[in-house]
Structures are given as C-alpha cells and as structure tokens.
C-alpha cells in the first residue's frame, strides 16, 4: 500500500478531497468527524493518512509516506535540498499564497529591497541593534535577503499574528504569507515592490526516499494516470 498524506483540517482538507474526487479518487474521513482515520475509494493500493500540513514535508522526506499534499512554501522552508527528497507531481490550483516582505506603509522612503537595506543600515546606527524582521519562514527569507545583498537585519521568530508585531514593537518589518493583502492593509503594512519571495500553492508531492514495492509502483502509476 502507498500512503497518501493529506492535511487533516479545514479548507485545505476539503479542497484536497474535492481535487481527488474530480479525478475519480474519493477520500473521506472514516467514522465521526473527530477521528483522524481516512478512507480511500475508487483506486486500489492507496491509503490515506491525515496529518498536519506542516508535518507532511518531514514525513515525505523521511519516506514514511509516499505521496503528500502540502504547500510549496512549506516544502521549500522545511526541506534543505528539497529537490533531492521530493518531486512535484501536480500543482493543485488552490491554497494560493505569496510569501512577501512588508514594511509599515508610512515608510514612504522604503519601496524596494535597496531601500530596506539602506533603512536597515540607518536603523542599526541609530538604535544600536539590527532591524528586526518577524517571520516563521527563516530559511527562505534568509536565503532571499542574502541573494539580494540585504544586510544589517535580524530575523525574529513569529509563529502567528505576524502582522501585529510592528505595532507591538517586537519587529520593524515582516515576512509572511498573504493571499489578498487585507490583513496587511488592516495592520498598516505595505509590500515591497520587489519583495515577493515565493508564490505558493498546494501541490501533490511524491517522496524520493520512500520504498516502493512492485505493487506500490503500480498504484503510483495509477494515481499518475488519473492526473492527466
């Protein structure tokens, strides 16, 4: 049996169920709604495992699940050299979100990464510490800023309500996921013109490390056939 990891909650789970149903694979929760046991109909040799979306990259990378549904942002953030550990079978067309860098809207002198770098240098000189950027996407943000030669900043960890950190004075800028930008506007933040780090959406991934028996390969091929 190949194991398919599916986000266990909310909109992402419902969209995943619908996406597979459109391809003739019916996923459902067995028993009552609180139970995390899955049922798969319409295809043989596949079982469903309900997992937190954030844990699916790790499980794919460890080869404990063969297939998994999760956002490309989480794959890129959580897996170093992700191309060696997972391959993308299909983008799924939902769960769209952009990882962006945003600064207070009233910073009218700061619209680009060049400005952010210059602002960081002045901020450090005046305040004695590096300009703080709140995020939970440490690896992607660090890599992006290094690539663009932005210096004199530090990342501070924020696992939620990141847009509020500037007002609360625990950060000067943020790097976070946004889909409509409404939360950013409500918190008086503005996206830098060249501050798009990654455009994420939910994707179906296949593990490059999991063991596949002959029967598993047949099941995987059947899944692939349904995607076209």
């Amino acid at each position, binding site marked *: 049996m190949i194991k398919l990891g599916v986000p266990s909650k909310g909109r992402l789970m419902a969209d995943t169920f619908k996406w597979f149903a459109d391809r003739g694979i019916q996923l459902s929760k067995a028993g009552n709604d609180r139970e995390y046991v899955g049922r798969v109909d319409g295809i043989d040799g596949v079982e469903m495992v309900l997992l937190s979306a954030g844990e699916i990259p790790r499980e794919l990378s460890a080869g404990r699940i063969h297939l998994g549904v999760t956002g490309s942002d989480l794959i890129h953030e959580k897996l*170093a*050299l992700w191309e060696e550990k997972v391959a993308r079978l299909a983008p799924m067309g939902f769960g769209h979100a952009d990882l962006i860098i945003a600064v*207070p*809207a*009233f*910073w*009218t*002198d*700061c*619209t680009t990464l*060049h400005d952010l*770098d*210059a*602002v960081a*240098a*002045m*901020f450090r000189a*005046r*305040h004695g510490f*590096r*300009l703080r950027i709140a995020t939970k996407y*440490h*690896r992607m943000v*660090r*890599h992006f*800023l*290094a*690539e*663009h*030669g*932005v*210096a*004199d*900043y*530090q*990342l501070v960890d924020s696992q939620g309500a990141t847009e509020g950190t*500037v*007002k609360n*004075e625990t*950060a*000067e800028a943020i790097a976070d996921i946004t889909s409509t930008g409404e939360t950013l506007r409500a918190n*008086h*933040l*503005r996206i830098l013109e060249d501050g798009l780090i990654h455009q994420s959406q939910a994707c179906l991934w296949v593990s490059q490390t999991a063991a596949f028996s002959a029967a598993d390969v047949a099941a995987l091929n059947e899944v692939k056939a349904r995607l076209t």
Partner: protein
Amino acid sequence: MAREAAIRAETQTLLERFEGLGAQRIEAGILQPADTLLDLYGEDIRGRAYVTHDPLRGEQMLRPDFTVPVVQMHMAENSEPARYTYAGPVFRRQEEETDRPNEYPQVGYEIFDGSDAARVEAQVFAAFHQALADLPLRAVMGDMGILRAAVSGLETTPHRKAALMRHLWRPARFRALLDRYSTPLTLPQDVVTGPEIGLRSAGDVSDRTALMQDDAAAPRLDAGERAALEALMAIAGPLPEALSALGKAAETMSAIEAPLAQLRARVAALEEVGIAPGALDFEVTYGRTSMEYYDGFVFGFTAEDMPAIATGGRYDALTRVLGQGRAVPALGGVIRPDLVTDLRARA
C-alpha cells in the same frame, strides 16, 4: 583510522612548527556566545553555523572559526607583540553542499604586532608557505585595501562611498549600487502611506527621504571612473604582471598609490625571506565573498577539486570591533590538516 592518525600527526607537526616561530599554544571553547558572532556577521551566520540554546545563557554557537575567540582573548588579557597557535575542530552547517564535512580540523597561527606591517605580513605568509612547501598548491594573494582605497577615491558623495564600502563583501549588491549611481535616480512617487507605527519614527523616514533627495541631485558616477574601477577589480594573474597592471591603474587612480606601495613593500619583504613573486598569483578581489572580516592583505593556498587548504589575512577592523575601544594590527590564518593529509595520500 589511518587517516585519523595521519591528521593528528599533521596537526602536531603544524603546531610545533608555529610554536617554533614563537607562538604560544592556546585553546578556545567549542561553545561560543551567539550574540557576538551574530553582531559581527549578521543573520547569514545562522545559515552557516550551528546555533543551540540554553535557558540560562541563551543562544550559543558551535564555533564556526577560532579567530573571534582568539581576538577576544588577546584583547582582554594580553599586550603586543603576541603570537598564538591553536588546533581543533570547527563546525559548519551545510545546507547546500552535502558532500562537505560539517566538522573539520583547523590549525591556526595569529600575530598581533603593530610594527613594520610589510615585514610581519611577509612572516605570516612565509610561515604558511613553508609549512605547505612540499605540496602542489597554488598560492594566491589579494588585498582588500586596494579595493577600499579605490572606492574611497571615487568622485562621489561620502554617502555613496559609505554604502559601497558597506557592501564590498557582497558583489551583487555592490554592482547594483554602482548601477544605481550611474543612472539618473527617480524617487518613489505616490507611495501608499499610513499611520506611524513601530520603533522607526517619522523623523527617521524624513531624514532618509532628505538623503534620497540629496542623492538624486548628486551627479552621476562618471562612466570612465566606473570602468576604471571594474578594470581594477578584474586584475588577476601572476604577481609580477598584476603589479605592473596595478601600477598602470594607479596612474589614473591616485587613491590606490598608498596600498600599492604597501603591496610592493610586502613583495620586497617576501623576496627577502626567499619567496619569489613569480610563483605567486595576485587577484584584486581575492577573498571578497568568503573572507569577510579581512580588511587588507589576504592569502590562500588552493588545490584542484578541494576547498582552500589554507587561508588567512589581516583583520585590523575586527580587533577594533572586539577590542572595546582598543584596536591592534593583527593577522593570521588557518590550515586544514585533514586536506593536507588527503593531498599527501594523493601524491
């Protein structure tokens, strides 16, 4: 295990060699306070060093190199002149290159000495050159002082020079800054604004806006000057040829005369200790991306298909940062005894 024993023996030989040159043997802790290293290197160091956490002491790092603890120790306890040698593992997180080790040994030799700079630089280089004399290595030198002098000599505003100087170690941003200063600047128009929030104040915003207006009004960087800077940065080759190219560059770029005179004095001092310039390479931008605390003379010994076998240079600015007001001319370098062992096994 034969390799491990050979590395230990190589390490011992190197330590004894440096002790024979008057160095005092010292140790440094494997765990280093993260804040000092973060303050020096910025967020990038997190991608390259192991950070660990202790509820009482906060963030700690597995030492990514010895230079910082050695400089701290010297600045706190000792006076010049002083020479040190040390050996032990350093730890580097590898996110991209899985075939590189995340723990490897280094043997180092560091000198804190404010006397005749050229003579001390030649001594340090000669110490490494002699230690590696029997290996087929390319010896390459550079000098961050030349690029720094060239930038400070540009016909442009102090603000722009400071920005370029700050990004000497980041070639992509350095080039982007040169591009920016070479074309007419347009200031952002009709920017969405909002209420003042956070630590950075409206006063900070208006101060920088004024700087941007000054910058937009300042003349563009002269195309000829920029071309001369680019040509200078491209100088690389055998040391004698590089010296004549630098001499030619100095005819139009008088700012580099002083560091060039220092380089010539260094070469003369090298010849005095028996190192012929013809066998050395010189690159103006050598070490520009990887050796970020070096601010003057830099050097390396390299072999095909391997990371650098030895690297070193002058780091006067680092002593100023770590010296709490005191600064000392300082330089030194490290050798990888593991790579030396592998090279010997190849031969």
